[in-house]
């Protein structure tokens, strides 16, 4: 069956850009649908360009080889702002930024400081960083409070700092809970440093599932998988276990991004990349690009934890209050949270 032809010349108006400003983005090897920072950055950019009425260009990288050519091709395409994602793109971003001083760069999750002098290596790069340890600390505290078995777990994709920072904060949160409440809640799956349970990649696969199962086998009743799609493995493990296990999301609020998880999410450790990318691009589009590094903290709501949603009734009534206190303590520095961003 054939439909009728639309009138000639009429095009769906929203496609036509109303501004010359062209924001662009390069993913790292994870691709834009990594359920993690690439995706959140992408969504932030999308939101901003829609609001600006701008066109945009995005390119995915499949390997380390692709970073430079991808950035170069965006430079050649006349982009005004280029968002790059991940420490892996740091060097390529710095190089491109130096070569193209009139283009603004936004680098997610890296300080763009490859000579370690404490300063960003090019004046036209804005690093977006997130001290997720602070938020994970709160999640760890909540997990410890919620746990009935006295065991909570976590595992990661690969021992990258952007991954272990969650696990580290989480563990510190649990330890703080133990210390404050004279409890003995144990963390399985992370020992500190790069010692812990890792699936060896950021794919959702059987390894992610069995690793989660091994953690549940240790009687853990809260689990926090860190590393994009690997949470799907934990979800499978929880469903298969037939037990009452709580899941802690990372990056975004799983309750909203993946409805499948709703019955299980205790809370999520939020890394508000979407918001900060959106704000940065919006500002850049209006000509107010500010290259000062942005560090998301509890204080500026760049990181945080999501509401308990379905678990509202399951957590102890005074938990929210305690969390608010801890949060305040972290913000004012009375509760120290260690992370590599210090």
């Amino acid at each position: 069956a054939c439909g009728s032809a639309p009138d000639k010349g009429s095009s769906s108006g929203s496609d036509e850009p109303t501004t010359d400003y062209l924001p662009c983005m390069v993913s790292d090897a994870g691709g834009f649908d990594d359920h993690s920072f690439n995706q959140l950055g992408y969504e932030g950019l999308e939101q901003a360009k829609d609001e600006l009425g701008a066109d945009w260009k995005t390119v995915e990288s499949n390997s380390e080889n692709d970073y430079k050519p991808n950035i170069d091709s965006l430079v050649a395409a006349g982009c005004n702002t280029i968002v790059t994602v991940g420490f892996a793109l740091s060097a390529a971003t710095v190089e491109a930024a130096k070569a193209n001083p009139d283009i603004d760069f936004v680098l997610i999750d890296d300080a763009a400081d490859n000579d370690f002098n404490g300063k960003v290596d090019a004046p036209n790069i804005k690093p977006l960083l997130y001290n997720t340890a602070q938020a994970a600390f709160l999640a760890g505290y909540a997990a410890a409070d919620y746990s009935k078995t006295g065991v909570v777990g976590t595992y990661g994709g690969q021992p990258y700092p952007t991954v272990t920072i969650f696990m580290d904060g989480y563990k510190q949160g649990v330890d703080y809970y133990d210390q404050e409440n004279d409890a003995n809640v144990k963390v399985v799956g992370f020992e500190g440093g790069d010692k812990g349970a890792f699936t060896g990649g950021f794919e959702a696969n059987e390894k992610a599932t069995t690793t989660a199962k091994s953690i549940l086998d240790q009687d853990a009743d809260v689990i926090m998988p860190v590393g994009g799609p690997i949470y799907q493995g934990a979800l499978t493990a929880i469903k298969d276990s037939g037990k009452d296990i709580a899941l802690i999301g990372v990056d975004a609020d799983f309750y909203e991004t993946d409805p499948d998880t709703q019955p299980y999410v205790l809370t999520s450790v939020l890394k508000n990349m979407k918001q900060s990318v959106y704000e940065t691009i919006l500002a850049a589009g209006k000509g107010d690009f500010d290259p000062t590094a942005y560090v998301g903290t509890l204080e500026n709501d760049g990181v945080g934890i999501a509401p308990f949603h379905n678990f509202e009734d399951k957590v102890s009534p005074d938990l929210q209050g305690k969390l608010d206190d801890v949060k305040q303590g972290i913000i004012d520095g009375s509760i120290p949270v260690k992370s590599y961003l210090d």
Partner: protein
Amino acid sequence: MSTVEADVETDEAGRPIVAAHGVLKAPTIFALFAALIALVLVFKSAAGDTTFRLASRTDFVQLPEVTVPANGTGWVVVVLLLVATAASASYAARRLRTPVWLVSAYVVLALTGFLAWAAAGESLPVVGLLAGALALAVPLVFGALGGVLGERSGVVNIAIDGQLLFGAFGAALVGSMTGSPVLALAAAMLAGALVALILGVFAISYFVDQVIVGVVLNVLVVGFTSFMYTQVLAPNADSLNSPPHLSAVAIPVLGDIPLVGPILFRQTVLVYLLYVAVAAVTWALYRTKWGLRVRAVGEHPKAADTVGIKVNRTRYRTILLAGLIAGAGGATYTLVSVGQFNREMTGGGGYIALAAVIFGKWDPIKATLAALLFGFATNLQNVLSVLGAPVPSEFMLMLPYAVTVFAVAGLVGNSRPPAADGIPYRTG
């Protein structure tokens, strides 16, 4: 005139048999490992007790937990290992090969000792360890079965990875569109068979080098599925990439057998299908007319041709069947482990399956065991790293691969493929 006769044991050709060479390999390796474990115990002695948990909390029959002192167990094991070494040496002295049961016993003992040491102060979930090993091995076993079948008929199948991946893709797509796990599985199997068909057209009909076709098919499938994923599946994830999830179904009675039940009989339908597949393939290959012909075609196609067997038709049928099986393995990824399709989600599993085919010496049962060994090593790494092994995670992650290299180089050695494996058959 007198006849030359020897009063020793002889083979079918009437040649005397003295002793197998290389009988010393087993006792040497045995002794080496016993010494290694002893050394570990001396230099890094483990404090505390180790608990072996033989049942999970929800089990119908609760087997007691076995708690043993880590160090003491270690030493008992060392002594037992030395006994086994002596036994093996006595076989060698009689110029006999160490029997398989002794090797198996040795391995189980050594593992127990190692686990008691590694999990000192913790409790080790034996059920979880073994069930997880099985789960990790499922797609590998399917893939390896497909590989064994193909190679037994003389077609080298490097494209197992492509079949798994395309199977996963097919299952995700059809599963999402129809919501039916049965149709999803069927789609996965057809997808695997489609890859096999392309392999057949090029390798059997057009005599293209089978290694080339296999390698290239893998790339083709990666390219195609990744392309479709980005362009079609990901933007329409709700309707096209949310296949039904297969959950575990306990088999009544069998599922309640202590220890064995939770490991083997509380699995998904795919795992039960796997049991059937392994048994059926093994049985069919060795006991049926079809199997005899498949093996004949893989060993000596011309001989098969001269007795009226259609060589290439047999090969086509066999690899299509192999494709169906490998495709079913692909369904595991999307219907069981993950619940959606992701690009390159097999993570090279097909290559591991290929290794299992060779490791298993082209025998369905041995290839299955090889895949299980790999699954076990992987899950052992999982469990130990969750327990908090005092080793950097990179080395833990290396474990399954290093174990495989060791097993292949140290224990298996030379393996002989079917004689006509990889050689296209042309008729005059």
